[in-house]
């Protein structure tokens, strides 16, 4: 048994690490490190740097811009990006719509959309959840009626991240209300956000931020050629996405960087006249979190190893999301605690130190979403109970 990367893998990791160190614009690195909001320009800037290097879409086929890395290299790359504090890549186009088009799309759709996604020319958002369809996504009701050469879409999506500045939305819609099995009436449709009849309403979250929206469709006309795969096969498409690239849901690299930041931050704080890191209770909490993260990292590597051996990961991979998000949340909680009274204030903070502390409470609030989104941790447990344990 060998828990280490091979020589080749380690060399690759160093190559990636070195390039990242030299290539993340300092102002963006600063923003990420101090939890400042990244705007559309910021996200595009990083996207274009990666695209220029040829590393913006590693998992795509080479003909469309992929890097021909194996699963381990792809994992290493994502982890190193997290560890280096690179800005996140918006996943909806690159990691969701694109793989779907590559797997199920027509040649015309691939040619039309993939290069634009690759170069960051189109921002995508995801139209899945509805007010009445969260965990029970298959119950979705947004209807798409086929009329000659187009679909007419009516309905509403919710929790649409970046819907307010997306160019396109990929939607699960119901094209058939009469099927015995609900899933069989669902189709996957690509919709231009500039289409008449689309309206976007911000959904402010409890941290005061605007990242998600409600998107309303009022007789929106969508060319029939924007259907991906076959009518009624949308659920198959969605399931494909769920099983795709699941080894990074633990966000180990990013959490390791967060932990290191937290330690530095805590060492500079005082409790009872001593550095906070010397406070026994806080030190215990920090240590326990570090230990949980160590365990998660090794578990993640073991899943990766299975993949090396040609065995796709089973339902157990859900545990990476469960534990990974719990750790992410705990990191934000301890950071807020470390800032003490300074984290109570959220407005009118003066100076970089106070401004940083004033972001920690809202960040703690914001991260409560991680155990809810991308398949709530309850659903993840259901999946494991059913598929892994046969219950």
């Amino acid at each position, binding site marked *: 048994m060998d828990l280490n990367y091979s020589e080749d893998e380690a060399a690759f990791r160093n190559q990636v690490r070195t390039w990242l160190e030299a290539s993340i614009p300092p102002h963006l690195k600063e923003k990420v490190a101090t939890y400042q909001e990244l705007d559309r320009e910021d996200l595009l800037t990083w996207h274009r740097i990666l695209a220029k290097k040829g590393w913006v879409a590693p998992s795509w086929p080479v003909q469309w811009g992929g890097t021909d890395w194996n699963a381990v290299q792809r994992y290493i790359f994502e982890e190193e990006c997290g560890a280096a504090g690179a800005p996140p890549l918006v996943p909806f186009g690159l990691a969701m719509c694109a793989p779907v088009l590559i797997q199920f799309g027509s040649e015309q759709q691939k040619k039309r959309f993939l290069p634009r996604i690759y170069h960051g020319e189109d921002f995508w958002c995801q139209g899945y959840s509805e007010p009445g369809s969260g965990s029970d996504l298959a119950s979705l009701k947004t209807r798409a009626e086929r009329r000659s050469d187009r679909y007419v879409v009516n309905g509403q999506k919710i929790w649409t991240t970046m819907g307010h500045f997306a160019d396109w939305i990929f939607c699960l819609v119901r094209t058939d209300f009469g099927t015995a099995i609900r899933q069989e009436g669902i189709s996957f449709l690509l919709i231009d956000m500039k289409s008449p009849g689309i309206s976007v309403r911000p959904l402010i979250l*409890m941290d005061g931020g605007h990242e998600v929206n409600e998107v309303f469709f009022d007789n929106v006309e969508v060319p029939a050629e924007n259907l991906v795969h076959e009518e009624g096969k949308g659920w198959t498409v969605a399931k494909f996405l769920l099983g795709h690239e699941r080894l990074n849901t633990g966000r180990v690299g990013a959490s390791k960087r967060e932990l290191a930041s937290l330690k530095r931050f805590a060492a500079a704080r*005082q409790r009872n006249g001593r550095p906070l890191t010397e406070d026994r209770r806080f030190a215990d909490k920090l240590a326990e979190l570090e230990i949980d993260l160590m365990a998660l990292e090794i578990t993640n590597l073991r899943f990766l190893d299975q993949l090396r051996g040609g065995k796709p990961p089973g339902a157990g991979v859900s545990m990476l999301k469960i534990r990974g998000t719990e750790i992410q949340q705990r990191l934000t909680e301890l950071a807020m605690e470390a800032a003490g009274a300074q984290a109570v204030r959220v407005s009118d903070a003066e100076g970089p130190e106070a401004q940083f502390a004033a972001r920690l409470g809202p960040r703690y609030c914001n991260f409560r979403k991680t155990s809810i989104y991308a398949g709530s941790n309850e659903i993840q447990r259901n999946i494991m109970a059913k598929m892994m344990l046969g219950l």
Partner: protein
Amino acid sequence: MDFELNEEQRQLSDSLERLLTQQYGIEQRNAIIQSQGSFSPAIWSKLADLGVLSLPVSEAAGGFGGGAVDLMKPMGLAGQALLLEPLIEHLTACRLLDRALAADPAAAGDEVGSGLLEQALSGECRLAWVRSMDGDDGNACRAERSGDGWRLDGHLASVPGADGASHLLVATGSGRDAGLFIVAASTPSVTLRPGSALDNRRIADVDFANVQMPTGQRIASGPGAAAAIEDAADFGSALLCAEAAGLIDYACQATLEYLKTRKQFGVPIGSFQALQHRIVDLYVDLEQVRSMAALACSKCDAAAAGQISEIERTKAVAAARVLVGKAATKVAQESVQLHGGMGMAEEMKISHAFRRLTVLGRQFGTVDFFLDRFIAAERSL
């Protein structure tokens, strides 16, 4: 032992409940946040009219001579309504002022102090009190003899109730060296930097830059001042526990309602056993919080009446703060999670409850702080 309210307490609670139901709904509360800087003079004046502001002050000073137990239900109602106005801070400061004046009848600052107390009870002015939490990121204040008077120096971050307070009661030192000073917020060498807190309430950073104070501004000193200060600290914490009980009650009810009405997979999600167990756990926590709030409040009153020692009171209040602090975090996190995505939405009251519970659990001290305080009290008993 008797956990029921008496007639007077019931009447006050009923009146307050009516006021909050009619004038402190979600929309009205949002309006107070957006356009009144989280303080409604109209509501404050009604609280004064109802007698809430005068409740814990002695009859000699124009109050009702009530105690923490009398305020339990009212604070619970304030918790449920997510009251933004600095009620606990003001009540605690008034009680502190009242007791400090009584402890040191010959103190030079008495006239100023009594005049101020009278105005505070009527709602004309607001008071807040500050105290050193020594050694935590420079949050400290010290008073030193300076000529005929005193010099106050220090910095305190995010003091609740300080924004809009006309005067601050500043508690320094301990035991024989304890002192309580009245400092006008408008004093030139005092800087108040206001801001909003995570729970939409108002706070201010307070800076004392060598504030020169004539002797008259010290209204109490020595063991008498120390006793009044510790009483106020425990009193404020006890009220906070009572507020938490009301707020956690709301969070449980709202979450239960959501579990009963939200349908997925064709059934209410409350029919899933895993979720049933989790909400039952929240209700169990609610009862423990209620119990500890009652304990903390009754021990405050018993100590004030000389029936138990101050250490016994301090130990009970510290215990309550530990339990309530842990429950506040857990209930906040679980109630949002059980609401799914909706729990994250700012337009949902439960998300406001999350933020208030997060701040409340740490106000006047964290769980770790009170664990230390409990252990110290336990050891000295």
